[in-house]
């Protein structure tokens, strides 16, 4: 994979993500749930942002809106100069395919497929040639240290290995944006650290913009450079991470 490293700002200086008065409401029976309720914020290219909040605060809903998995009730989500609210379903699919990569708490690998097939899947959707695909898949899995486990199924792997495979899959189409929803939620602290180091590496060496949802304040403080706090669908706090050396790898501290 060849990404030009450290393109921390786009040429015209536009933000990677611009969210304006964003709302996502839905009905659950009689009650109207305001999952995201009037959030406005901007994220610059190359930033590492943590979305913090207790469960039900709307942080995952916000991430899904940025990912183009969900549509806002009102407001705008502009990613790479395109308002996702205005895109067709096909264009949104293309956005998920090319612009963003996602990792989830529960890994979300297709259990019936081998690791290689899982990582290969976005390349198929992107209609990449067969020969090229094999090389890219191998490269991506080797990058996360799973080169020897290509033909294994997810159930044969540990949680950490599964999440690494999910990372390889998220990066296979070289997106500019990595969205992580509680990436270490199902992992012990050691493997969690391993995953977070990969994510930080992508941020620093590849210049990817990272938005990570977590409820662990300590994790956010250790890795993110900016922390946004949500409560009841509203943005309550947004500030740079003041913890020293937050952006440096652990062993260098």
């Amino acid at each position: 994979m060849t990404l030009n490293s450290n393109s921390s700002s786009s040429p015209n200086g536009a933000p990677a993500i611009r969210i304006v008065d964003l709302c996502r409401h839905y009905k659950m029976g009689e009650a109207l749930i305001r999952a995201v309720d009037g959030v406005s914020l901007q994220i610059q290219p190359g930033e590492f942002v943590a979305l913090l909040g207790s469960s039900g605060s709307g942080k995952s809903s916000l991430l899904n809106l940025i990912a183009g998995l969900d549509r806002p009730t009102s407001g705008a989500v502009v990613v790479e100069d395109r308002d996702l609210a205005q895109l067709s379903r096909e264009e949104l699919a293309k956005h998920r395919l090319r612009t963003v990569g996602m990792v989830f708490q529960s890994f979300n690998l297709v259990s019936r497929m081998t690791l290689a097939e899982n990582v290969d899947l976005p390349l198929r959707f992107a209609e990449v040639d067969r020969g090229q695909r094999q090389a890219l898949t191998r490269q991506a899995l080797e990058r996360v240290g799973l080169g020897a486990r290509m033909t294994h199924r997810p159930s044969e792997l540990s949680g950490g290995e599964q999440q690494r495979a999910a990372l390889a899959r998220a990066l296979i189409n070289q997106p500019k944006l990595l969205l992580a929803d509680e990436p270490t939620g199902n992992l012990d602290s050691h493997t969690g650290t391993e995953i977070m180091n990969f994510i930080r590496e992508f941020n620093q060496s590849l210049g990817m913009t990272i938005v990570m949802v977590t409820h662990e304040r300590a994790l956010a403080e250790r890795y993110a450079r900016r922390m946004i706090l949500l409560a009841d669908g509203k943005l309550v706090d947004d500030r740079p991470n003041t913890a020293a050396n937050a952006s440096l790898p652990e062993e260098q501290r």
Partner: protein
Amino acid sequence: MKTYDLSELALRNLRESSLRNSLTTIGISVGVASLVAMLSLGIGLQKLATRHLAKSGLFDTVVVTSRRDLRGFNREDQRSTASAAESRTLDEPARQEIESLPDVLEAYPDIRFITELRYQDKPHLTMVSGIPDSARSNDAFTGIPGSFFSSETAPEVILQKSFALELLGKTPPPGHEDDIPVGDLAKPLLGQELTMRYAQRVSAPESAQNTPVKSGASDESESDAAYSVISREQKLKIVGISDLDPDSMRGAARARVFLPLKLAQELRVMQPSDVRDSMRGFSKQPSYSTVSVRVKNPKNVEAVEQAIKKLGFNTFSILDATRSLRQFFAVLDLFLGIFGSLALAVASIGIVNTLVMAILERRREIGIMKAIGASDSDVKKLFFAEAGAMGLLGGVVGVMLGWAIGHVINLGTNIYLKRQALPPETFWSVPWWLVGAAIVFAFIVSLVSGLYPAARAARLDPVQALRYE
């Protein structure tokens, strides 16, 4: 997604839950098999029926009669078109004119008469007909015990089986004529002699030398139409016996003894039309009651019939007779096809069920695929491809199964026929177009069955689907 990747992924998915998918595919196979078996039975029966008709050798024959002849074949037709074209005498110039029409191979006068044939001093009365040399290749005369006439004027006869039975004094009950093989009849009859007694028509000047039996000359004339009739005898050698009934189109008037046409012409046997013509008194030269026209290709029969009608004659062909038969088989095929398709319709519900189940089961997987960039149409195509693959596979297996079923039915029927001492028949035929059509039909039915599940899978909300465990 590229087509190759799509089909690969679809086949991979089908292999995953192989039991359920193979059961569904078997369902389609059974449906296709029943369709193929039913239709091939219909086609086979039709072929059987038309084969028997074709063996009569008259599919390429048009029978022409004069409109003046009240005993023409198409009386209604005669009434309706008599005024449209001038009615004409069916004589030698007319025959030549018909023969020169496009697509006409030959036109020969139909010479037939009822006469007495003596065999071992016993008289037998029957219809005798002259047949042209071209009938040599007719199915009715190829492969028969004995041979065709050695020449166009040889004093030889070919007997129809029923007449051979009569000569030998064997009279099986009606419908059981086939019980006696024609070969058994040939042994005692081939090479034997028949004596035919007939009435010869002789022109008036010559008649003095002979014994006049009956004078049919018209009162007022010294015209060519004046003639005498003399009783004659002709010895004929039996050279062949035909199992089939080549003259069956004539119904009750069909001939059971066949002479070479040239010989029949030379004998100048008194024809029924001679009497009639002489009574009306317009005959300058002998006219024919009917002329048989052989057409180059059965396809042209209708066109030739039209052309001859324009000349002012009545026509009749076996195609007229088989039209209702073909209609019957079209309806039969339709019904068999509908019954066959019912099984396929049930199978298509099976596809819908299997795919809807697959959606429920793979809901999370669909969510994942959408989250990592699959578009609605990617998901839709994937389910489509799975339905299509099941249909295609089911179609291929079904055609083979249907072929086998038809084969077994045919075999069973022939075993039964053999026990009844009847010759074996092919009731069943699978033409290539049916093989292709059945597979394509199964494929299309499967795709249609996949429409709803595919649309449903494509509309799945990824956020909801990912939440689903």
